[in-house]
């Protein structure tokens, strides 16, 4: 997956190839998943996801939202 976010350095090492997108991808998509307990709140409304496929879809949606939010902030800061 190509990185759409600017790379960020966490350790100060130039050799690190860690991007924010990589981090978000790994912390949301890799590892132990506890089904049925995945909740994210949008505009104060809790959305409960109970299936892995739905969770992955929600992650894509969240990433799109984050990117849109970043672009909006970038525009407003100009």
């Amino acid at each position, binding site marked *: *997956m*190509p990185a759409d976010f600017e790379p960020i350095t966490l350790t100060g090492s130039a050799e690190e*190839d860690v991007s924010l997108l990589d981090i978000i991808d*790994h*912390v949301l998509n*890799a*590892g*132990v998943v*506890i089904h049925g307990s*995945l909740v994210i709140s949008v505009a104060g409304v809790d959305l409960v996801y109970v299936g892995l496929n739905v969770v992955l879809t929600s992650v894509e949606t969240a990433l799109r939202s984050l990117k849109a939010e970043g672009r909006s902030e970038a525009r407003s800061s100009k």
Partner: protein
Amino acid sequence: MSRIIVYCGFLHDEKLELPGRGVGGSAVNVLAQERLRLLWSEVAWPFEPAGLQQKAVEFHQVVQHVFQRAAVVPFRLLSIFENVAALEKFAAENIAAFTADLERLRNYVQMESVVYVIQQRAPEQEKSGKGYLERKAEVFRLSVDHAASIRAAVQPMSDHIQVREVKSGTRIFALVRRGEEARFREVVEAVPLPESVSRRVSGPWPAAEFLSSAVKKPHGAEQP
């Protein structure tokens, strides 16, 4: 409302210093059962999407703190437990599988390479879409072949490789001995890169792709 967020599991090591702060500046606690240790924090729940990006980085930093020194079984950021008692029950039910995986992965890390097609626009002079589609298919074939070449190149240094097709290309996951990360990068970067195809290498990551199914989808995980 608060909930218990779990970062990762690892095997007890008295030399290991624990991270000071977790997601949202929360205290990081340890649940100990036999040799298994689970790092957890009590956090305000649910997360607001606006703060998800920051929390993802904080979560990652806690896992990385341990992973730099030891093998870990990472949990996903949005996986939570109702309370510490639920986490203790979960740990008791899954201790054998977690311990076995941590022993098996003790000296390994996960390296990744993603191969993807550089998006191209149809030339304006193109009279029909046929030529464009043919070139697109050719570039896609080149990317598939390149992924296969990378897999073949890293095979001698990894007995465990997984390849997954994703929306934008191909991801290659390799289980590599700790300390061999730079060599993995060198091996991948030595594979000639076709035009119109790109690739990226990342890692080391915890070996999440190589967890046993009993750990990926652990006992008791269906309970909210």
